[in-house]
């Protein structure tokens, strides 16, 4: 059984990468708004499903289908903010009202996809262009390599955005203290909209690179949301490095517990371990960007 371990580890890392992307998306929205986006996993589902439709049913070439799928998902992300968040924001709603709204979005979106596309899992071909890599006894497929490379690229691109651009710093300022950001002339509503757009972009990219590996279907978003949420909490909410580590921890735990213990109890075992981790480190492994929410006026 131990000769399985390397395969399981590699599998865990690949799944962990997608959870990490999701955790980063959840952290982005949390940082600017203080709320948890329970629709984040739906962006992964949408990215995969829309691309699959544009490729399989509309008949676009794969690169065009991918661009279209990602763009449409970003539009959905921006609309979510515009229709369900901003009106509440302007009326000073409580945090749980937003969370409920996002739950509603996470319920309605899969249903719309089911009505429009059906219940069948969809996929599209692997991108190719990258070689399969032999790691000792394990083969990392070309598409799995895509997943890992894209995750790393997303991480560094975002890091650069937040550390080097004025817009990124303005988003960070909004995350640290919304009142002060507004005093500096930063349009806080635009920053919130942008965080939803970015979160949807990340989700869509994740969905697009991941779908050729395992396919996707209308209800794939929920477990993505849960695992991404768990990864964000384990890593430290809103901390990108933490999101990566949290994602990997969960991916590897799931992969190993499913294989060695039981495919039925895999999730239960994973969450039991996470529970233990959080008892020891209740704030997650990394420091959140915002340690203390500044008091609102």
């Amino acid at each position, binding site marked *: 059984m131990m000769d399985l371990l390397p395969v399981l580890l590699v599998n865990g890392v690949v799944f962990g990468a997608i959870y990490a992307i999701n955790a980063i998306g959840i952290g982005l929205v949390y940082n600017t708004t203080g709320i948890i986006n329970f629709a984040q996993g739906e962006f992964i589902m949408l990215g995969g499903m829309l691309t699959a439709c544009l490729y399989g049913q509309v008949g676009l070439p794969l690169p065009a289908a991918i661009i279209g799928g990602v763009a449409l998902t970003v539009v959905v992300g921006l609309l979510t903010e515009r229709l369900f968040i901003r009106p509440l924001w302007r009326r000073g709603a409580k945090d749980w009202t937003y969370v409920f709204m996002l739950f509603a979005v996470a319920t309605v979106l899969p249903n719309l996809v089911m009505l429009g596309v059906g219940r069948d899992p969809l996929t599209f071909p692997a991108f190719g262009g990258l070689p399969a890599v032999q790691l000792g006894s394990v083969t990392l497929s070309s598409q799995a390599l895509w997943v890992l490379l894209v995750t790393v690229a997303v991480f560094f691109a975002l890091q650069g955005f937040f550390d080097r651009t*004025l817009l990124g710093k303005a988003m960070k300022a909004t995350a640290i203290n919304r009142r002060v950001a507004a*005093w*500096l002339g930063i349009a806080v509503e635009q920053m919130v909209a942008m965080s939803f757009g970015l979160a949807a972009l990340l989700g869509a990219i994740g969905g697009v690179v991941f779908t050729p590996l395992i396919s996707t279907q209308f209800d794939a978003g929920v477990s993505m949301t849960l695992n991404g949420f768990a990864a964000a909490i384990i890593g430290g909410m809103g901390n990108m490095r933490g999101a990566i580590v949290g994602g990997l921890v969960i991916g590897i735990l799931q992969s190993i517990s499913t294989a060695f213990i039981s495919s039925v109890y895999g999730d239960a075992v994973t969450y039991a371990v996470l529970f233990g981790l959080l008892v020891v480190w209740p704030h997650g492994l990394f420091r959140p960007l915002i340690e203390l929410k500044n008091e609102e006026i």
Partner: protein
Amino acid sequence: MLEVRDLKISYGQIEALKNVSIRVGRGEFVGVIGANGAGKTSLLMALSGAVRAGGGSVVFDGEDMTHLPQHQRVGRGIAIVPEGRQVLGPLTVMENLELGAYQRRAEARAVIARDRDMILDLFPILRQRARQLAATLSGGEQQMLAIGRALMSRPRLLLLDEPSFGLAPMVFAEILATLRRLHAEGLACLMVEQDAHVTLETTSRSYVFRTGQVIMEGSSSELREGGLVLVEESYLGSGEKSS
């Protein structure tokens, strides 16, 4: 330059400002004094756009900005140094300054860098701390950063909310000296302070607030000589002598 007429602010049932009218002339240094809860901070919140006016009007340089969104007011030339300094602790001194110029992001970087250098000349200690996180600065240094950050937007009117808050008198005196210098160079300032003596010594004209209303106004020297007893009454509400 700034003309506030019959401004009303309320938080739910509580009226924080009742028909307040004040004005700040071009390049003037105006003070607002009064006890805690007199409505001084509410006035600045309304001017900076952080809270909505419940009535009345705010006109700045001929433009009615009563309902102008908060972020656009910075671009129009009104910057605030908030109470308690409110620097962005997890960001560096340089990043704080850079964000102060957020509304000028269309301008050439070189122009903004020159302004930043001028501010670092004004507060040399900030230059030494440039790469440090703002949270690691002392209270006085943070106040300098908060002022520098506000100046980065090239304001024509600077709103100062309790700049003495939590600072040692020596440190505050140094900051006041810098503010006087900025004023001498033409910057209009509206300073809200609990410390009436310091305010009346620094400003040319002052308003005395009490329970959300202006109860007295005049040149600061007159208020200092003739009306200080009354000013003190406004703090205590009964004419008892304070320490």
